[in-house]
């Protein structure tokens, strides 16, 4: 199976890429100003106690030793202890990652759904006022800073109209048996709406425009006319032939866009006090919590790489003309 081999080889490559990224971020974080222990210092403490903490974190060792220790630990699946939570970095990161997942995945799916439908509509209405209006609308949404939109929404819908709660992931004090239970609860959904919508505002634009232009390309092809001549009915012409072929670039865009959504989520999370990975990342970077920052970077990097890989192989699968090598 050709595409399988391709997939395998790419996977093999990406392992090395990941290692490269690992090394890179390890050192770039050490280049950042600040000291992990600075956070602990307070007048109540003895000055020398700080050395104690440094030693405990292994920060007193020379950098290259720290690096090799880190790499060997990583190979053993141990990504270090958070300097802030004192819990395994991986656990901390995953706790926050899920929160981001349940926000971004629906946002992306919805916005791509809307994008597809809307884009098709615009393509149909080629040259009309509606098309122009629709495109302007999409472009305006796309060019608005997501945090700004979030702020405005927060202000209007939460603080003035009191329709939605003013941020955070679920009702105050609500406790759940598990994550799934929380996600399935109505309260969670209620909190989800605003961040979801403000995220969608930004991400809708791309699929909308992409679908439109791609459909406009396909719809002029002869095989569409041929299909019409076959008299298989307008609907199946549209879906079997136009959309099926036009969807290719959109699908690939979707795969990569999800990865982008994660790294971009930090702004939304800030505004809506959503305990997601983006916020964790910024916090750990500001607090020089290296293990957490590094691991969250690794996770995102892995996701980016995988998504790109997925996009490519998906394209190869969806479009027989593309021969993957």
């Amino acid at each position, binding site marked *: 199976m050709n595409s399988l081999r391709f997939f395998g080889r790419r996977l093999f490559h990406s392992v090395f890429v990941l290692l490269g990224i690992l090394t890179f971020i390890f050192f770039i974080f050490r280049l950042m100003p600040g000291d992990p222990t600075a956070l602990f210092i307070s007048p109540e403490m003895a000055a020398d106690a700080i050395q104690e903490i440094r030693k405990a974190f292994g920060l007193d060792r020379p950098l290259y030793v720290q690096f090799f220790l880190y790499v060997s630990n990583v190979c053993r699946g141990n990504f270090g202890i958070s300097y802030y939570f004192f819990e395994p970095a991986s656990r901390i990161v995953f706790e926050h990652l899920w929160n981001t997942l349940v926000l971004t995945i629906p946002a992306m799916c919805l916005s791509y759904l809307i994008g597809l439908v809307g884009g098709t509509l615009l393509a149909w209405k080629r040259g009309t006022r509606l098309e122009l209006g629709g495109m302007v609308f999409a472009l305006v949404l796309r060019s608005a800073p997501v945090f700004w939109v979030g702020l405005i929404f927060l202000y209007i819908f939460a603080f003035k109209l009191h329709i939605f709660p003013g941020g955070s992931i679920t009702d105050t004090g609500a406790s759940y048996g598990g994550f799934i239970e929380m996600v399935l609860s109505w309260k969670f959904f209620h909190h989800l709406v605003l961040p979801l919508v403000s995220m969608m505002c930004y991400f809708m634009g791309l699929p909308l425009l992409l679908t439109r232009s791609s459909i406009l390309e396909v719809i002029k092809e002869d095989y569409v*006319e041929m299909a019409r001549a*076959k*008299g298989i009915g*307008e609907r199946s012409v549209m879906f079997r032939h136009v959309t099926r*072929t036009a969807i290719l670039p959109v699908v690939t865009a979707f795969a990569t866009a999800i990865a982008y959504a994660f790294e971009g989520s930090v702004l939304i999370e800030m505004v809506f006090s959503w305990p997601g990975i983006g916020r964790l990342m910024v916090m750990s970077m500001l607090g020089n919590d290296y293990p957490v920052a590094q691991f969250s970077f690794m996770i995102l990097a892995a996701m980016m790489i995988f998504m790109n890989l997925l996009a490519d192989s998906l394209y190869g699968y*969806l479009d027989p003309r593309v021969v993957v090598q």
Partner: protein
Amino acid sequence: MKPLLDVYNIKVDYKTERGFVRAVDEVSFSIRSPQNLALVGESGCGKTTVAKAILHLLPDNASISGGSITFQGQRIDNMREREFDRLRWCQISVISQSAMNALNPVYTVGDQIMESIQAHERIGKREAQSRIRELSEWVGLPPERLRAYPHEFSGGMKQRVIIAMSLALDPSLIIADEPTTALDVIMQDQILEKIVNIQRQSLSSILMISHDISVVTEVCQHIVVMYAGKVMESCSIEEFYEIPCHPYSMGLLMAFPTLEGEVKRLISIPGSPPNLFGAVSGCLFHDRCPFRRSICEQIAPPDVEVSPGHIAKCHFAHQANEFRLLSTREDTWEANVA
């Protein structure tokens, strides 16, 4: 007997930024099965538009603004899409102009033929497949290639696929729009043969659209010459070769080699078709016509019935004989500078 397809005085207008353009003007012809009819003319003369008009495939900015199209006795030009879909393919099928991209790249050719069958007939997959296999053998396409994708085919092969597809439901009318243009001469011959003997076996008639008379002569019995959206001459192939009555037809004859391969120098008609935006006074062809008189520039010529079933749109259809002699000399054409 009543004709299979009767096109009567249809007019098609295109709406453009610069106003309306009448691409097809009062074109009439009719096909009696199993006779085949050819629609010839330079590119842009509106012959494809006629085909599209018949097939309800006119672009959004074009519309039929007059005349009627009757198929097997029922009007189809004003038919609702739903109903017309039922006629499509099982009654009227198409061999499309550009074989290169008339097939959807993301489906196997087998599927695409299958699609056209299943759209109209409630038959099992196996049955359909056997029919497809039979078809593909018929058009000389190895059945195992049915599972391949269009981009893996050569132009000729694609054309065969399309032919096979068009025959899938043996329709009573096949509209072949420039079926061989994209192919090299050898291919052309093979494909034409196919079309001919297919037409012999299945009793369907062909409306063949081409700019190349040498192609149509093999297939068709009747010919309609179009120029700038109007019918110039309409007659049987024989008459067309023996006694063409319109200078333009003569020009065309001079412009193509006959397949009998009689040696003659080919000419080309100088000048170009009139701009359809400005209303042209008189005969549309007058500025390129070597035999024009002053009348040609004022009065539009009527349809002159030279002999039963032979119509030419020329003031001097009856003096056609001396034109014919002159027209064989290329200096006639070169001398004429519009």
